């Protein structure tokens, strides 16, 4: 089981250390940091590292490193999943996870880490329960404390009642003046397209994110008009699996606040997903120069939605010497150090197709690449569902009031890449 957890800033400074099974010197983090520095990119460091005395398992989120040190055999996925959960909880508490936010709230961080794990075994990990036990810091509270007005503890002295009940994920006695529930259905298109413009792989996966601000014990039912689109799905523990198996309806008593209700993958075997936009790169090298031409444009199946936040990233080979590239829309920036071109298009205009044009020259005497680099595409379309999933109804029972219900679809590029 986990011996100790360290939190390391992007610059390699240990900012939090918490030991669950006796003290372990933070020197093992230095070994880890060496590894990070030797790697071409922090993400190249393997999640499991062997040091002479310990095993270092880490996850990277928000540029920070969350490191677990273990001594004995353990299920590695339990460790990484737990670390991710810790980060999720931090984000839930502090709205962001950064060196700053952790330092600012380090006492709360220690309190949370103490409650989440005991003796290296996860203990209370449900955000709703944690939040009742350890009240998240608020600006107001901080002001009051610093002025000496209030000395209210942020620790609840009683165990939350809900914790021991069968619906342990929901706090008791939740009250809102405005009862609202918001659903964000975010779908990502993972896709790779080969040099001939053919789709090699294309998957659509989605998440149902809920922001629940409902009083009491509401019982929600979410149904879809075309549930068969959902292929494989996993749920928050609150969803009644039996009900889903039977009716393909998500029935649940939601936790309070933000949570991920489900994530699903879309059945793409039947029909190919039509992509919302096209990217046609033509990058050819000959001798010491290369011609670059990239065209981007929307496809017609968008039902009037516009594609936003389009960014094209082209990681050129390292032996590029100079470039002479221009765009007719948006801004392009070429980073000389990493030789990466980042072309921010923003909204795709209807009247013309954005186009990147120009040439690059190679450092003389180096090898001429045989093919172009893999281009990464990023975009977002609001109120559009790539899979075509439609919500039939979101109903509530168990409470008297009428909640306000908001649903939003967003389609984003996941790992969308085009080979050139």
């Amino acid at each position, binding site marked *: 089981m986990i011996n100790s957890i360290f939190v390391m800033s992007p610059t390699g400074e240990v900012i939090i250390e918490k030991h669950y099974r006796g003290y372990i010197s933070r020197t093992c983090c230095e070994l880890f940091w060496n590894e990070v520095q030797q790697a071409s990119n922090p993400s190249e460091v393997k999640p499991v590292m062997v040091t002479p005395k310990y095993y270092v398992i880490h996850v990277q989120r928000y540029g920070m490193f969350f490191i677990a040190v273990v001594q*004995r*055999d353990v299920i590695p996925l339990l460790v*990484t999943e737990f670390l991710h959960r810790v980060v999720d909880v931090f984000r839930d508490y502090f709205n962001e996870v950064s060196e700053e936010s952790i330092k600012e709230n380090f006492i709360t961080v220690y309190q949370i880490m103490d409650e989440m794990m005991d003796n290296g075994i996860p203990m209370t990990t449900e955000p709703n329960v944690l939040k009742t*036990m350890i009240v998240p810091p608020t*600006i107001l509270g901080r002001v009051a404390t610093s002025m000496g007005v209030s000395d209210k503890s942020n620790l609840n002295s009683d165990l939350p009642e809900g914790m021991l009940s069968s619906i342990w994920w929901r706090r008791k006695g939740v009250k809102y003046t405005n009862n609202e529930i918001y659903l964000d259905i975010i779908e990502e298109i993972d896709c790779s397209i080969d040099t001939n413009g053919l789709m*090699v792989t294309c998957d659509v996966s989605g998440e149902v994110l809920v922001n629940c601000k409902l009083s009491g014990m509401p019982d929600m039912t979410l149904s879809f008009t075309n549930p068969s689109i959902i292929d494989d799905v996993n749920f928050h523990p609150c969803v009644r699996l039996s009900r889903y198996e039977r009716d393909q309806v998500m029935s649940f008593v939601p936790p309070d606040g933000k949570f991920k209700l489900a994530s699903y993958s879309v059945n793409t075997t039947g029909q190919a997903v039509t992509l919302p936009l096209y990217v046609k790169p033509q990058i050819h090298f000959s001798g010491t120069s290369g011609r670059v031409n990239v065209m981007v444009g929307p496809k017609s199946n968008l039902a009037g939605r516009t594609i936003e936040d389009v960014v094209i990233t082209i990681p050129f080979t390292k032996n590029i010497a100079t470039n002479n590239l221009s765009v007719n829309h948006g801004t392009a920036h070429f980073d000389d150090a990493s030789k990466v071109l980042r072309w921010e298009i923003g909204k795709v205009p209807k009247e013309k197709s954005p186009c990147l044009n120009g040439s690059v020259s190679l450092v003389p005497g180096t090898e001429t690449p045989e093919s*172009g680099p893999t281009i990464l595409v990023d975009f977002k379309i609001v109120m559009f569902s790539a899979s075509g999933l439609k919500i039939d109804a979101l109903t509530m029972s168990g409470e008297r009031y009428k909640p306000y219900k908001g649903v939003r679809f967003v389609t984003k590029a996941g790992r969308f890449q085009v080979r050139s």
Partner: protein
Amino acid sequence: MSLSDAHYFEEMGVKKYEEIRRLLDSREKKDKLEGMKRLMAMISIGRDASNYYPDVVKNVVSDSLEVKKLVYQFLIHYAELKSNEALLTINTFQKDLSDTNQLIRSSALRVMTSIRVALIAQLQVMAIKQCVRDSSPYVRKAAAHAVAKVFALDPDQGEALKELIQGLLQDNSTMVLGSAVAAFNEVCPDNWDLIHPNFRKMVRLCADTDEWGQIMLLNMFTRYGRKFFLDPSTLEKEPKDTNDDGEKKKKKKKKKKAFYSDDESSKSSSSSESESSSEDEDEEPELDPDHAMLLSSTLPLLRSRNAGVVMSVATLFHYLAPRAQVAKVGKSLVRVLKNNRETQYLVLKNIATLVLSRPEMFDGSAKEFFLRAHDSTASALLKLEVLSQLVNESNSQLIMREFNAYIKDTSRDTVLIAATIQAIGRVAAWHPSLTDTCLRGLMTLISNSKNEQMVAESVVVVRALVQQAPEQRVRIIKQLIKRLENIKAAPARASVIWMVGAYHNLIPQVAPDVLRELLKVFKTESTQVKLQILNLSCRLFLTEPDTCTPMFVYVLDMSRYDTDFDIRDRARMMRTILLTDKCDKLKEKASQIFLGERKAPEFYAPSRDSESFSLNSLSHAVSHHVAGYIEIPDFPEDVPDGSIRDPIISSSSERSDNKTSSKKDEKRMKREVSDFYKESDSSGSEDDSSDSSDGKGSSDSDSDSDSSSSSDDSDSSKGSSSDSDDSAREKKASQKKKASAKKAKQEESSSDTDSDSDDSDSDSDSDSSTERRKKKQEEAKKKAKAAEQKAAAAKKDAPPPSKNKSKEEKPKAKAQEPVASLIDLGDQQGVSSLLDTSTPSSAKPLTLQVETSGGISPQGSKQAAATPTGKAAASMLDKDKLLVHNLLHFANGGGLNVEYCFTREESMYGVGMNTVKLSLHNTTNVLMQNVRIGDKRLEAGMELEPFSDVALLPASSTNSVKIHINFGGKMRSAKFDLVTDKGTYPVALTPSAGELVNPLLLSEPEFDELAKGLRGMHECKLTLPPVDDKPAEEIREKVLLLCNMYPVDSQTEGIYKFAGRDLGGEAKNVVLVALDVQGTLVGRSESTLLSRQIVKELKDAFLK
């Protein structure tokens, strides 16, 4: 003043340190908090704050939870360094352990056990002992964690800890279970005896446990299954066919059970469940039911959002499931891959191993393993490996095209390109049909690519492929030789030259020529290549000495002055052996030395290194043995006995009957039971009223028979109402079990097939209308002759589940017989007249029988199923033999006679409770109403759960009810009032000491071990007259009758040993009784008083 705490990280001047002491000594909570914050910041920055330990210790008594928690954290952080000071705090924690707030209790235990000072391990064990019994699962969870802590600190405590774990494993709270299993895995991972009785419960509760608990459980299940279930592949003689799919679906349906206790689904699902479970039996007759249950109830966990759970389920299926079922897991694993970077890597690592033995698992998912631009190198390498394993006829085109794209992609790491080429090589080697295409592709690479490294890698792979079948690939060798000039990379050149040497016999003309060409450039070659040229020339010299001797000598001469000593040495050796006469013996064997055949290299996947480690372990991830790694055992060869998992002492037939119900959620079960009480009572009273209205003549005999039928009915309605939620199948099963009398009736009434009789049975149950009876009666008439034989046959046919059942059967059948013959006589008589004529004497035993059977029927068997450690000691004895005492004599009770007996069943209201059956007998000839328990006058520490009111107690009838009493471990009377509509009667129920214990199953060595520890004041010795004249059975029975204990299987003649456990006391102490034939009676227990009492009672009993 700053709003953020971030400044603590920066402004740590010396001055600030000075202040901390002052702050900690302050009375103000705010100052203390400030001081603690600074200390925590020091820890965060990595400075040593241990000097402040004494100052912090003082604050451990702080009232503020916030300060307290920080103090706790600080204490734990430095406890090892400052063990002496840490000891000062122990008292505080011990005090906090009995705080009323569960949060404080649990954190006190956590801190106390986190102080890693071996000196206090004893105290820690005591503290855990206390908390294991805590009413709050939150505290018990902390206790489970603490067990592992103490074990790490002082492994000598293992035995005591094991006992604690045993207790924790029996816990029914899902919150505790996961942690208890974690402790089990750590402290005594091979002590399966602790798991057996709890196994089924754990499987059932697994779905409701939190995700981390699920991981622990699944891990344990996997090891357990490999140890105690048979290898499913040995059972799969004939491959399963198409209906397998259907079965799967049903299985999926089955899983939902345990989730929420949602009633909505219970009906439909239960019916489908019964179907599928019966189907299961048909299709997989050999898979142990527990094995099947484990698989079916863990499968739904694949839906978990936690990748760890999904991987653990996959591991379980990999090791335990029949091959056909494992494939289901593949899809979920692929889904999990899309998670974050770390998960992806770790899951891939496992998949890479899985795919070696089960490529079919990922059939059709090949696309998911295509490289993405975001993949880290480590993940990409694993993906390539998986892909190369997945190639088959249908997807080879696709995958090879993909490989091609990777090679061309310049933005990729060279490591990856090399790995891709190796992957192609593996594919070529494994799939003969693809070898040629692959070779062609590689050759084009060699000839066209400008990337030296790529060429080098390709040549090496091609060489390895050529080695597989050199004769067929002469052309390839020649092509490579042609390209030799252009191949620059040393390893590639060396490879080609080696090939020329190794296969020179295949290319007889070419080889010398190649050597000649090489000699020209020998000087400029790298060491690696030079060595190969040396080898080549040597080989040629040996095979074609005529043409090649000069060249060989030339090479040797050149090598003689080489800068590399390796080459100089090699050349010298060759010269000495081959060209001089110094060592003739070697020269004779020269061809063996220099022309030896080499074994072709094998292509194997890099993941083979990890293959020997069990999936989903750290050892597997790092490919070496990590401390604490537990191997997955092999399947046993012999059929493991499934009955080890039976909740202690319950016959096997009962188990199969209850199989469906045992899958139910425990909670639901409890609820049902309590519901059932209500329902049965109400329906019973309804029946009563309807029956009494039915009965026309209200003579004495009528009321007698009436009551008999009513109690019969209520019995059956009990069954049906309790089962209404459940499947019809279960209903039948339980009915079969509890009412064999009915069975006899059935058999009499219809000699049709079983299902028919079942139908008629349920009909008669649900409807007690006269018409039905008439019908039945007519049917019965026809078959009256056969009836008797049938009844007898039924007795034989029915499996003898338990003694009492067959006991029950006999009088019932007897009771039936006169009825049947009466029917025979009175053709034209209606039901009422039938009942009229049935003599009281024949009806009476029936009535009584129903009463006594009430003790074991529905509730009894259900509870035994629900609580694995069912206090079923009574089943060692005949139920009827249980001592019955009088509680209220009818003379004092206004005609109400009450007898009680301890049923020795585990009470559903909690441990420590005794279940007492009260037989309420109305001796008057008037109806009694509203029989209930009135005022309770209990002493402190006692509890009493009354029976639900008996609305009607007809004249001369008897009703059995149950109450649950906690005597608090002492022999004192439970005083309460029994109230009827006629009056209030105070009674006192005094337990015998023997009922205040729980049976405990011990082996003799265990018994002796425990006995050794209980000497002196814990021992109580009495002497009896020698009992050697009595048979062993009688003695044993006598003791068991009096004490709720288990006999210990004793090897020594003449000594009888019994073990139990204090039921009500705080300590749950063991109570041991030993009796030898000489008449020495010894009781040992830490609860001295109790054991003394028991021994005294026993003595009295024997003296009688």
